C-alpha cells in the first residue's frame, strides 16, 4: 500500500514537472533556445492568479484566464525586447540573456509583491478520490494536473502537426532560412511559439502553487530547473517526451527519497539524468539528428 501511495505521490509531483517541461520543450523545439526565464514566467502567473482571487475576490477560473492573458503578453514582450534582437547572435548570447531575464523577473516580483511568502489557495476545490477504505488518496490537484498534462500534450501535438501555424513552426525549427525563403513569417511564428509557451507557463504556475502552496519570487526557479531536467530526460524538443520525462522524474525523486534517503533525493535525480545521457544522449524520446558536413 505504501508503495502505491508513493507511486501516486511520484506521479503528482511528476505531473507538475511535466506541465512545466511542456512549455520548455515547445520553445526549445521551435525557437532552438533554452528559455531559462520560463520558470519565472510560471511564478508571475501564480502571482497574478493569487492577486485576482485574494485582492479582487474573483472566482478561480477567472484568475487562471487572467494569469494566462498576462503571461502571454509577458512572453511576447520578453521575446520581442530581449530575444528578437539576438536572432542571429550565437546561441550562448541568447542563453545568457535568458538567464538575465530570469533574474530580472525575480527582482521585479520582489519589488511588486515583496519577499514574504504568500500562501496560495488551491484553484481546484473538489473531493479527492479515496481507494481501499481511504488508505490510498489521490488528491484533486494531482488528478487535474495529470489530466491537464495529457490534454495539453494532445493539443500541442495536434497543433504542430495539423494546423498551418503548426506546420510553419516545424518548418522554422528545421531550417529558419529556408522557411523564410518559402514565405513563412519567421518572427511571427516564433512570437506565437512564445505566446503559447507562456500561456502554458501560467497554467503550470497555478497548478504548481495549488499543489505546493507557498508563493515567493523564487518559487519558479527550482521547479524550472527540474522541469528542464525532465525535458532533457524525455528528449528535449519532443512533446510526448516532456510528459514521459516529467512523470518519470517525479517517480524517481519520490522513490529515491523514500527508499534511499530524503537528503539525496535531488542528487539521485541528477545522477540518473547523467547516466541516461551517457547511454542515450538525445534523451528517451529524442530524435537522432545527423549533422551534415
Amino acid at each position, binding site marked *: 500500500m505504501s508503495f502505491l501511495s508513493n507511486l501516486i*505521490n511520484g506521479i503528482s509531483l511528476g505531473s507538475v514537472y511535466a506541465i512545466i517541461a511542456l512549455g520548455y520543450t515547445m520553445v526549445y523545439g521551435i525557437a532552438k533556445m533554452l528559455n531559462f526565464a520560463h520558470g519565472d514566467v510560471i511564478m508571475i502567473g501564480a502571482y497574478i492568479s493569487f492577486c485576482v482571487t485574494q485582492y479582487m475576490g474573483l472566482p478561480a477560473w477567472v484568475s487562471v484566464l487572467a494569469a494566462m492573458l498576462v503571461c502571454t503578453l509577458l512572453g511576447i514582450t520578453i521575446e520581442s525586447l530581449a530575444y528578437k534582437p539576438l536572432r542571429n547572435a550565437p546561441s550562448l548570447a541568447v542563453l545568457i540573456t535568458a538567464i538575465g531575464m530570469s533574474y530580472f523577473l525575480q527582482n521585479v516580483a520582489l519589488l511588486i509583491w515583496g519577499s514574504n511568502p504568500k500562501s496560495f489557495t488551491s484553484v481546484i476545490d473538489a473531493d479527492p478520490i479515496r481507494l481501499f477504505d481511504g488508505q490510498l488518496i489521490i488528491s484533486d490537484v494531482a488528478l487535474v494536473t495529470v489530466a491537464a498534462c495529457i490534454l495539453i500534450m494532445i493539443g500541442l501535438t495536434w497543433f504542430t502537426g495539423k494546423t498551418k501555424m503548426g506546420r510553419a513552426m516545424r518548418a522554422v525549427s528545421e531550417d529558419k532560412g529556408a522557411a523564410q525563403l518559402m514565405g513563412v513569417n519567421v518572427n511571427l511564428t516564433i512570437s506565437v511559439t512564445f505566446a503559447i509557451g507562456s500561456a502554458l507557463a501560467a497554467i503550470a504556475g497555478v497548478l504548481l502553487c495549488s499543489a505546493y502552496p507557498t508563493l515567493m519570487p523564487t518559487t519558479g526557479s527550482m521547479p524550472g530547473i527540474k522541469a528542464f531536467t525532465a525535458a532533457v530526460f524525455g528528449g528535449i524538443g519532443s512533446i510526448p517526451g516532456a510528459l514521459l520525462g516529467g512523470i518519470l522524474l517525479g517517480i524517481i525523486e519520490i522513490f529515491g527519497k523514500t527508499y534511499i534517503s530524503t537528503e539525496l533525493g535531488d542528487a539521485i535525480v541528477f545522477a540518473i539524468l547523467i547516466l541516461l545521457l551517457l547511454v542515450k544522449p538525445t534523451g528517451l524520446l529524442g530524435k537522432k539528428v545527423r549533422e551534415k558536413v
Partner: protein
Amino acid sequence: MKKMKVLVSFVLVIAMALTMVSAAVAEGALKIGFIGPLTGAAAVYGISAKQGSEIAVEEINALGGMQIEFNAQDDEHDAEKSVNAYNNLMDWGVQLIDGCVTTTPCVAVSAEAFNDRVFMLTPSASSTAVIADKDNVYQVCFTDPAQGAASAQYIGEHALATKVGVIYNNADAYSTGIYQTFMTEAANQPFEVVIETTFTDDTTDFSVQVSAAKDAGAELIFLPIYYTPASMILKQAESMEYNCTFFGVDGMDGILTMEGFDPALAEGVMLLTPFSADATDDKTVSFVTKYQEKYGEVPTQFAADSYDAVYALYQAMQTSGMTEANTTEEICEAMVATFPTMTYEGITGTMQWAADGTVSKTPKAVKIVDGVYVGQ
C-alpha cells in the same frame, strides 16, 4: 561645470548642517541599535521584533527620565549584511544593541560585538552559538536546546501522544539544534519517536515525509522548523487526510500572519512559546492593546521578546546606575556585571540570566483555535 560645482558644494553644506542637527537631537539620549530582517524571507520576524521594541521605547520615553534613541537596521537575514548593519550602528555611536533577530546573522554580529565590547541582548536568536564564549551577549528567548527539551517534556507530561514523529530541516542549524535536544530528552519520556525525516531549504514537496509519518502511525508530529515549510506540511497532511497533532516551536509563530494562509489548516496546532497574546495580566493586555492600535495586528512572540529586551536593558541601566553619558565600553562592563544578578518581570515571563547569557523562564503552550492562540 562651474554651476555643477556650486550645486555640489551647496548640497554638501546642507548635508553637513543636517548631520549636525541630528547629532544635536541625539544629545542626552541612550542610543539603542536594533538589527533584524526588515525585508527578505524572514521579514515577518524582524518587523514584529522592531515594532515590539518601538512600543517599549515610546513607553520609556513617555516616562521622562532617561530617553532612548532607537535606530533599526535591516540585515535581510544575511550574515554579511548584518555585519554591515552593525558597522552602521557603530558609526552612529550605538551604546547597546537589541538584536539580532535571527540566528545566523547574530552569530556573525555577536563575534564583532564581543571584540568591540558592545553589549548585545538578542530578543530571539536562539542558538547557543550566539552566546558561546562571549560574556557580553545575552538572550531573551530560550536557547534551542531548551526549546527541544521543554517540548519533549511538555508532550510527555501532558500525555499528548504515545507515538511521535519528527520532521526537521537538516540544512538549518536552528532546526537540527532543537531536534537533537528533543531526541535526547525524548528518551526519558513516556512516548516513542517512531519516525524522523528530514528536508532541505528548497524542498516544496513533503509527500514523502508526511506519508512516512502516516505509515509509522505517528499521532503527533514535532516540527522544529520555520513556518513557511510548516505551512506546506500542514497542507500536505490535509490532502492526505492525515489527522494528527502538530507541535511546533517559536519558528511556527507567524504562520497565522502569512498572507493567503487558510487558518483552518492550522486548527489544533500547538506550539511552545513564552508569550500568549490572550493572557489577562495587566502588562500583556496593555502591550497587546497598544500594539493593535499602532500596527493593526496581534503581536507575535517576536514582538513580545523584543519589547522585553528593551525593558530589560532599561532596567539594567537603572540598576547599574549607568547613564547615556557613559561610554559604550563602560556600559558594556556594567551590563555584564548586572545581568546575572537581576530579575526582570516581563510579558514573556519572569527572567533570570546565567553568566553565560542564557535566560531561564517558563514556557507556555498555546493551541491555535479558530485562528487565534489560546493558552493551555
